[in-house]
Every structure is written in structure tokens, then in C-alpha cells.
């Protein structure tokens, strides 16, 4: 009995520590961002100022919120056709074949590549290609970052949707076949609709991942603290501005960076919550 109790209390303690750490992080983000919100109020979220010059200091998060949402949403759009095809390929057409096993492990490999390596590849390989194609004169910006993000989130989007697709009951599919449906018809009218919640959830989770990505984006986005004016405009994201500027930041600027961290935390939290809610409701 002693042993039972001991194990139980150790496990409880460990769980409490995790809880405390999470709560402490939220708390310190909140207390750290108080000076910024006190100074700028709600305007902090809608202002596009980023003036660190002493005496004229004024900070706003809008350029970074815009950059973050824009790159992530474009990345989601770009990643969709690829990862969707991969998941149908793996979950339906070539299910349990050798080819699928190879493809699946390659996709998993993508998830394992550190983000700095994506950044390097983007900087030295992808960026020159974009310049050669004449899409932009120097290759930095929203589009290049979104492209890299798209590749990075493919494994997150495809592995979960692949799983839901392959979980669609065989009886359901066979019923459709027996009514004379072709394979394509089965996939698009039976499999995908019945797996839709899981597929949607997997893309929302992938979006959550794209929102917080830092290193690869910071190397490619151009780090200009402006609201992006177009697909090939330069910009900056919330994660990237924090990573870049926290080192020498102090006072109001530090508080503003922490406030951006809090906002990023809220945005990814909401996105992840929606993802889980969709999965629960439809799954």
C-alpha cells in the first residue's frame, strides 16, 4: 500500500509541476507585457509603429500580426494540394504498399529536419530560384517564407489526415462499390466526406505550427517591420521579431516584445483549440 501511495503522490507532484510551469509562463508573459499595454492600450494591437529611437519610442504589433497570419495562411494554401494528395495516396490508393511506406517515411523525415536547415536551404537554393524566375528582384519576402513554411507543415497536415482517411470503415466503401461507384467516386463522395473533420483538424493544427515557426522565416522574410503590401513584399512575423530583437531590448521595447509573445500565444492557442474542437465534434 505504501508503494501505491508513493507512486501516486510522485505522479501527482510531477503533474502539478507541469501545470505550475505552464501557468507561470502565462503569468510572466502577462506581467511582462503590462508596461506595453499600459503605455499604448489596445492601440498596441492596431498600430503599425515600430520606433525604437530614444525619446520617440512607439511600438505596435500590427505589422507582425499581419506578417504572421499572411505567411501562415498562404503556406496552408500552398501546402494543401501536396499534402492532400500525399494523404490520399497513402491512405487510399497505395495503402500498405512498399511505395507508400517509402513515401510515408520520407514525409516523416521532413518533419524531423530542423528549421534552421530549412532556412539555409531557402536562403541558398530557393531564394536564387525565385530571383531567376523574375518573381522578385532579391527573393526575400512573404511569398518565399510561405513557400518554405508550406514544405515544413506538409508532414503535420498529411500524417494526421492520412490516418483518418485510412480509418474510414471498409464496409462503407464496399457499400459504395457495390452500388457501382468508381474508385474516384468512392474517394470523393464517401471517404473524404466521412473523414472531413479529421482532415480539417489536421490542417488547423498544421496552421498552428506555421504560426509559431521562427528560424526559417526570419532568414527569408526580409525582417522589415512594415505591413506587407503584397505577395512579394517584405515583412516580419511575430516569432521572428522576438527572436531578432530581444537581445538588446530593454524597458518599453522588451515589454512590447513580450506582449507580442503573449498575442502569439493567444493566437496559436485559439487555433489549436478550434482544431481540437472540430476533431471532437465531427470525429
Amino acid at each position, binding site marked *: 500500500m505504501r508503494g501505491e501511495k508513493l507512486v501516486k503522490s510522485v505522479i501527482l*507532484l510531477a503533474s502539478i509541476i507541469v501545470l505550475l510551469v505552464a501557468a507561470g509562463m502565462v503569468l510572466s508573459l502577462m506581467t511582462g507585457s503590462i508596461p506595453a499595454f499600459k503605455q499604448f492600450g489596445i492601440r498596441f494591437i492596431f498600430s503599425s509603429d515600430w520606433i525604437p*529611437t530614444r525619446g520617440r519610442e512607439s511600438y505596435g504589433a500590427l505589422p507582425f500580426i499581419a506578417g504572421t497570419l499572411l505567411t501562415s495562411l498562404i503556406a496552408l494554401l500552398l501546402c494543401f494540394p501536396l499534402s492532400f494528395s500525399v494523404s490520399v495516396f497513402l491512405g487510399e490508393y497505395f495503402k500498405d504498399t512498399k511505395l507508400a511506406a517509402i513515401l510515408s517515411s520520407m514525409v516523416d523525415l521532413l518533419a524531423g529536419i530542423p528549421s534552421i536547415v530549412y532556412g539555409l536551404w531557402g536562403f541558398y537554393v530557393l531564394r536564387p530560384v525565385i530571383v531567376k524566375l523574375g518573381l522578385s528582384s*532579391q527573393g526575400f519576402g512573404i511569398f518565399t517564407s510561405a513557400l518554405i513554411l508550406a514544405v515544413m507543415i506538409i508532414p503535420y497536415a498529411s500524417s494526421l489526415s492520412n490516418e483518418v482517411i485510412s480509418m474510414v470503415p471498409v464496409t462503407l466503401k464496399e457499400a459504395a462499390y457495390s452500388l457501382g461507384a468508381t474508385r474516384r467516386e468512392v474517394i470523393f463522395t464517401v471517404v473524404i466526406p466521412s473523414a472531413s473533420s479529421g482532415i480539417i483538424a489536421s490542417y488547423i493544427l498544421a496552421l498552428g505550427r506555421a504560426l509559431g515557426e521562427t528560424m526559417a522565416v*526570419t532568414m527569408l522574410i526580409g525582417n*522589415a517591420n512594415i505591413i506587407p503590401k503584397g505577395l512579394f513584399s517584405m515583412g*516580419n512575423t511575430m516569432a521572428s521579431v522576438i527572436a531578432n*530583437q530581444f537581445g*538588446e531590448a530593454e524597458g518599453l521595447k522588451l515589454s512590447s516584445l513580450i506582449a507580442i509573445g503573449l498575442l502569439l500565444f493567444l493566437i496559436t492557442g485559439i487555433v489549436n483549440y478550434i482544431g481540437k474542437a472540430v476533431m471532437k465534434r465531427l470525429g
Partner: protein
Amino acid sequence: MKKLSLIITIASAAIILISCRTGNKPSGAGNKKVTITAAGATFPMPYYNQVFEMYTKKTGILVTYGGIGSGGGIRSLADKVVDFGATDAYLDDDKIKEMPADVIHIPTCLGAVVIAYNLPGVDGLKLTENLLEGIFMGKITKWNDPAIKDNNRELKLPDKDILVVHRSDGSGTTFIFSDYMSKISPLWKEKVGAGKSLDWPAGIGAKGNPGVAGTISQTKGAIGYIGSEYAFAQKIQIAKVRNSSGNYIAPSVESISAAAKGTIPDDTRAMITNTDDPEGYPISGFTWLILYKEQSYAGRSKAQATETLNLLNWIISPEAQEVTKNINYSPLPDKVVEKAKNILKSVTYKGEALMK
């Protein structure tokens, strides 16, 4: 439940104990062998690493230096967790007042900010104050702009977009550059100002000197500013900049040292950008070590204070200054070394001068 609360109490007590023990490091040296701890600017780090290693070999005293940025160096000194800090931007009077006690500055070497660009076949670009303002304010956007052409008649300038590359992180390099720009351009002073990070009117940001240098060398038509210690070690095109005497000066060990030959105050807290020396490179600057004038604080021993001072005195000696040239920094002119010595003499322990 009782047991649980006991476990929590023990665990938190242990955590508190551990955090207390690591809290105040340099004070505990006592009579044992002295170790000196310092932290701060990354710009002079290669120089410090080299001379501190030499010093350890020479005297057996271990010196550790953490390159955590100028801001971090000032914070560490304010928190009294280091023997001295290092910074590329001197503390102005307001900042010194914010510190727990009076702080003094010891200059250690000179560096510069060079204007690097990437235009294959176009070497020896000459830039005036107006051109720098136009390019970095985003007003001149093409390399074959008449304003650049007029000043560089012998060069074949291409019809290419100018891409301005600046630092995305806060940096002493940016501070020196923007301080210079504020001196030569009223427009820059009004719209942008001087600081470690800026509200940039044009261009893209890259992280660190390596990031800026990498972006420039990878992008034809790019121009940006890089710390001289980093730029000199790279194969990168460097522009000549016109100084206040009207001479076009290429950054070099000599021209950077020359920039410090003008008049500077006794406490050495001065920016030497836009120097009045005719041979001086105009975008040069000191880097400083900072320490408390009264060395008896946070339980420091007299031995600790003496050794700290001995180290600083050695860094400005000819033996250590000679090292600067090997690694692309510039030595302090004699006049400045003299001033630094006088400052060291003002350091006290319990009110008594430590050096005579």
C-alpha cells in the same frame, strides 16, 4: 495529503537553496585563486577572447567572458554578477544614474563600420554624405542614378535596383552607423535618429554581421553596413567614405586609429564618428569595458578588485594592444591610453585608490 505537502515543501526548499547558491558568484572567491568574470558586447569578443587567454597563460588567473550583447553586459554589471561589463555604446549620464553605483569606462580598442556592397566588376565605390543619406533613406533606388554616377565617373554602374541590407537585431554596429548618419544628415536625424535598432525607412533586415554579410554577398545590387572586424575577414567589396575633411577614406587599421586622434573628453565617453582628423575613417568607434568606481561591493575581496584592475591595466598596455592588428581591430592612440590610465587610477577600494 500530509505526505504530499511534505514532498512539496522539501522540493521547493531544495529549489530555493540551489538558486541562492548560484546567485552571487564572483563574491565568493575569498582567499582562493581569483577568477575574473565578465560579459557583454559581441563586437570585441574575438579580441577579448585572445587577450584573456594570453593573460591566463601569463598570470594563471582565469578570465571568462560571455558574449551576450552590450545590453546584457550593462545588465550583468547592474546585477553585480560580473567583475566588469563590456559595451559598444557608452552609458550616458541618465544611464549611469540608473546604475546602483558610479560606473567608469575604459576604452579597449577601436573598430569601425564599413559600407559593403555587391556589384561584380565595380570596385572602389566612393560615397559622399549625400549619397549615404540617399541610399539608406531609400531615396536613391538605382545603382546608375545620376547622383552616384557623378561621384564615380570612372566606374561602370549597372542599371540595377539597390537593396539596402541592415541589422534586424539590436546592435552596437547599428548604433555607430546611425550615430554617424545623424551627424551628417539632418533628415536622418529627424526621421530615423541614432540607436541600437531603428525604424528603417528602407531595405531588409538580417541577423548579425554574418547575416548581413551573407545577404550582401548572395544578392547582386545589395549594400549594407558591417562591423570592420568581420568585414576585413571576408572577401567583400568595401566602399570608400568621404570624411569631414573631404578625403575619401577606405577603412583600415590605420585610418580607424586615426579617427580617435581628434579631441575626446577625459572620461573617454565620446563617439568619434565624423572625425575631424583628415586621415580618419569617419564611421569608427571605441568599445569599452565598464566597472564600478568603488570596487568594494557585494562582498568583493580586495584581491579580487586588485586583480580586476591589473587585467584592465594590461589590456591597454602595448603588449595587448599589439594583438588588435592581427585580428582586424585597431589599437588605441597613445593619447587615449594615457586617459584610460588616469581613469583606472581613480578606481578605489573602500575609498582608497588601488593603483598609483
